Every structure is written in structure tokens, then in C-alpha cells.
């Protein structure tokens, strides 16, 4: 399989803070990659970096992003890529759909092909059917749809141009479990049908294992572990990943107390000098607090921890 997207040593931030540090990963064709981590660890920012839609006060400070042989960082016609080559689906469809326009209207304006209005409508109705919505949705406004239907409409909107890559920013977090399951299966089916790759952001590491080929574990703007989904889930190497997995509800016996990870996620304004997880880590050594570990390949995956490798030169 060929590489579709490769992110190399990306740093995002401004003079005061660095939101993303040394982010590198790859997405191959027809691959689902999940990014997991706690709230505010930079998962969504990673997605926004890929389509260069960062908040005004942040910018890409260094690194490279290649998408389909285009260097995104130097590319100036992002309008041609956004929506056409890379689609995006969001967490809360109700606020990410414009309340004043019909679903049909909002899908239609994203069509990049130069075809007649009638053909456009035909195309939209087809994709609505494919995604499991009635063609009537074309004439409906977002507030007339349920959360699950809105999310399906959103997916239809992001797939209308048959993009190569879909960025899914917690698409199921705002939905109830059964609706979410429907959406997940829909996404899985779409991959085989459209031959598309997905970057799937979620809090839920077991959902990530269910849906994806590869898992990336992020913490405080850094990748701590990445590799094959089953491998990372069944045999986590990084202490943070291990903690995350032991906290999962399905790992409890009846009557057992709920486990948590002691401590808090550090704020971006006050990051530890060394390994970002060091204040909460039980294997912490003195050096962990002073230096950031390098990414190292162990056991068919990449992990950033001193227990398996060396520290980075600052």
C-alpha cells in the first residue's frame, strides 16, 4: 500500500506555547488510523494542522506534511484540497451544520465538479441513500433531523467529492451508543466502497481498536506510542497507554473500584521540561523530569519512553 499522508516532525504553536511537539505519523491508502488521548492533548489540533485551518494565534513552526506528494505547509491553494481531497466530519453535527440552509444546499455547495444543478441533485440524492438517509433529507433543515441523521448528513457532505482522506474528529462522541455504532459501521463500510483512508480521533481506545488498523496515543501535544491497533491494545508499552487500558470499564470485575490515573493533564502554558507524562508516571526516573525521550522502535511499534530507549538531545 502506498503512503497517502505523511506528517514529519510537526511543531505547532506560537511564541508562548507549543501545542503540538514533534508529531510524525503516516497514513497509507485505505487505512484507518486512530488518535486517542485525553481532552486537550492536541488530537483535534493535529487534524486542523493537516488541512491548515489552525486558530489565528497558532501556526506551524517547523516540520513537513506531505499529502499525495504535495507539501501542504508550502501549498497556497488549500481550497482545492479541503473538501475535495480531504473531507472532515465533526463532533457535534448540530452546531457544525449551518442552521439556515437545507442539507441539500449545504452539500451542493461543496461539490467541486462543474456539473449542472440537476446532476448535482442526483448525485446528492444518491449519496444520501447510500449513507442510509431518505432522499427527503435534501429539502430538510438541520434542526429537523436527529443527531444521528445530522451526522450522516455531515458524512454525506464530506464524501460527496470522493476524497482520499477523511478526518473524523470524534464523530460519535455526541451520539448515544446505538446511533454511534451505526455511524462506526457506516464508516467501516465506506472504506471498502470508496477506498478511502480515515484519521479517527476519539477518547475511546477500545473503539479505536475496533475500528482502526493503527493507533496513535497522544498526550500533551506529543505522540507517546503508535503502532498496530491490536498490538498497542493488547500489549501496551508506554506507561500512559498501559494506564489508559487498565482504566477501561470492560477490564473490571464486578464490585471492583474504578481506577483512575493519578494527577492531571499538564496545561500547555506549564509543560514539564522532560517527558510530559513524567509527573504522573510510576516508573519515573530523575532524568525523565529533565529530558524528553526519543521515539524508538520496539516490538514493531514506536514508543517514546526511557524504559525502551534514549533521551532526545534538547
Amino acid at each position, binding site marked *: 500500500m502506498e503512503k497517502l499522508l505523511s506528517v514529519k516532525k510537526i511543531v505547532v504553536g506560537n511564541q508562548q506555547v507549543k501545542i503540538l511537539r514533534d508529531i510524525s505519523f503516516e497514513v497509507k491508502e485505505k487505512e484507518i488510523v486512530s488518535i486517542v488521548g485525553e481532552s486537550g492533548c492536541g488530537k483535534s489540533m493535529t487534524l486542523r494542522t493537516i*488541512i491548515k*485551518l489552525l486558530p489565528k494565534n497558532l501556526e506551524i513552526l517547523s516540520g513537513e506534511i506531505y499529502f499525495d506528494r504535495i507539501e501542504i505547509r508550502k501549498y497556497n491553494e*488549500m*481550497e*482545492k*484540497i*479541503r*473538501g*475535495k481531497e480531504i*473531507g*472532515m466530519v*465533526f463532533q*457535534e453535527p448540530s*452546531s*457544525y*451544520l*449551518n*442552521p*439556515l*440552509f437545507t442539507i441539500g444546499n449545504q452539500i451542493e*455547495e*461543496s461539490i*467541486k465538479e462543474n456539473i449542472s444543478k440537476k446532476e448535482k441533485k442526483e448525485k446528492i440524492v444518491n449519496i444520501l441513500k447510500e449513507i442510509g438517509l431518505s432522499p427527503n433529507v435534501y429539502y430538510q*433543515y438541520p*434542526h429537523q433531523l436527529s443527531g444521528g441523521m445530522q451526522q450522516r448528513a*455531515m458524512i454525506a*457532505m*464530506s464524501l460527496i467529492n470522493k476524497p482520499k482522506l477523511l478526518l473524523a474528529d470524534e464523530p460519535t462522541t455526541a451520539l448515544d451508543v446505538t446511533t454511534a455504532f451505526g455511524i462506526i459501521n457506516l464508516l467501516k463500510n465506506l472504506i471498502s466502497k470508496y477506498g478511502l483512508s480515515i484519521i479517527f480521533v476519539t477518547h475511546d481506545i477500545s473503539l479505536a481498536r475496533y475500528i482502526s488498523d493503527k493507533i496513535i496515543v497522544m498526550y500533551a501535544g506529543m505522540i507517546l506510542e503508535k503502532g498496530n491497533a491490536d498490538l498497542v491494545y493488547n500489549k501496551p508499552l508506554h506507561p500512559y497507554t498501559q494506564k489508559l487500558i487498565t482504566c477501561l470499564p470492560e477490564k473490571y470485575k464486578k464490585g471492583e473500584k474504578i481506577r483512575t490515573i493519578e494527577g492531571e493533564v499538564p496545561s500547555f502554558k506549564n509543560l514539564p521540561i522532560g517527558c510530559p507524562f513524567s509527573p504522573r508516571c510510576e516508573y519515573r526516573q530523575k532524568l525523565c523530569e529533565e529530558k524528553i525521550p526519543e521515539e524508538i522502535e520496539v516490538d514493531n511499534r514506536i514508543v517514546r519512553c526511557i524504559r525502551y530507549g534514549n533521551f532526545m538531545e534538547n
Partner: protein
Amino acid sequence: MRRYILNRLFQFIPLLIGMTFISFLIIQISPGDYFTQLKMNPEISPETIENMRKLFGLDKPVIIQYFYWLKNIFSFNLGVSFSYHVPVSFLIKVRLKNTIALSIFSIFLTWIISIPLGIYGAIKDKKIQERILSFFAYIGISLPGFFIAMLVIFFISKTAILPLGGTTSIFYENASNFEKFIDYLKHLLVPGLILTLSGIGSLYRLMKNNFLETLNSPYIFTAYAKGIPTYKIYFKHALRNAINPMITIFGYELSGILSGAGLVEIITGWPGMGRLVLEGVLSFDLYLVMASLLIGGILLILGNLLADILLALTDPRVRLR
């Protein structure tokens, strides 16, 4: 939709009756009436005053007076002015026309200027263009209307580029219809400009803030992520959403047609309702004041109805209800 409008219009009748009843009561309960002032005059005998009171129906209880007035309203009779001894409708006809012309002219001008400026300010937020605009907006908001009026009048009287005071020039009688219209417009320009200048600032700020807030909405981010050109995001997605709250304000503004221009009318000598109603209030000219309150109430209600209809046209979520 038609049923909804009819329904709303129907609800207005009790609303208007309630409103006029309370105003009538408040005017009549306050001590004194038009004839109290006449008592000061030794040349008018107390009997004459009593007779006049009877003539105008002021000797009856307030409630009865109100129902007499209401009955007359339903036969389109606004009553007689105490001080001018002519029917109120005759008195306010021309002045109402002048005031409405002035208000509509200035509201139109204010909106047509401040809405685009607001959008421009929001797009250029925190850049030099926005800072300059906002600086002038602050000045416009902080200066009281009468002060702006004085400045404009001072400027006009120094340069004499526009006529000041009244609605017509000396040659008006002999002019053609078109010349009459132009002459009227020229006279309208000074009070109109003053009202516009004092209104732009706040409306600009409202529009700018609305537009800015809309630009930060998630659905605008979606539009960017869809690869839609920026101008289309501004003028399709953001504009429609940002203009919604403005429509409600527009409805209120319409209700201020009568009262909003009062001060400027008096300062610039524009013969509108302003001075007439002010004098009416000061001299307890009951039916004149009631007529102006009634028209104001009707305008308020119509303005709100218009805003609701416009809102229903632009926002599908309102249409449902």
C-alpha cells in the same frame, strides 16, 4: 403564514386598548389639566372654564372619558385639540408626513451605511481599518445627538450648501412637481444627516460584533473545511446568520419613527410631530397626546410584526413555530 399574520393582527386590538387605557389614566390622574392654566387668567370667569370642561367632556369620571375617546377612535375621530381648537387629525396630518419622511430617510441611510461597515469591520478585525472605524464609532456613540446636531448646523450655516429650517424654500409655490420634490429632499437632508450620524455608531458596533461572533461559529469552520471560497463564507454563511438578530432591532427602530426624531426636529426646525407633541404634553392637550401615543403604539406593534415576519423568512427554525 397568512393565518399567522391575521392572528397576530387580531391580538393587537386588546393590546392597543390596554396600552391606551393605561396612558389615558396616567395623563388624567396626574394633577391638573389644560384648563387649570386658564384659571390663572383673571379675564376668564370660572363659569366659562366649567362650561369648556363640560364641552370637552372633562367633567365626567376618567373611565367614562376613556370610553368616549375609544368610541370616537373606532369611528376614526381622534378628538379636538384644546389649544388649537381644531381636530387633532387635521393638526397632525402634515406633521406626521414630515416626521415619517424624516425617520424613514434616516433609518434607511443609517442601515445602508452601518451594515456594510459592520461587516467590513468584522472582516478586518484588529487591523488598522477596523481600529479607525471603531474609533469613529466610539465618538459617534459618546457624543449626544443634540451636540452632533449643533456641529452639523454650525457647518451648514457657515458653508450654506443646504437650506436650514422648515420644509420648503421661498420659490416653492411656483416650482414644478419635480423641483418641489428636490427642494423637500434638500430640506430633509440636514435633520436626516444628523439622525444618521448619531445612529451609525451603535448600529455599526452591533453588526460588527454579530458578524464576528458568527465567524467564530462551528459551521463557519465546516464551510472552510469544505473548501468554500472565503467571500462565499462571508456573504452566504456568515451574513445570513449575523443579520438575524439585527432584524429584531429593525422592528424596534420602526416603532421609534415618531419619537426618535423629536429632539433633532426641534433643534433643526423641522416641522414634524416632535415639537407639537412636546408642547401638547406640557400643556395637557389630552387628545393630541393620546393621538400620538396611539400612532406610536400601532407603529411599535407593526414594527414587531414586520420583524417577526422577516425573521420567519430568514430563519427556518422560527418558521416552524
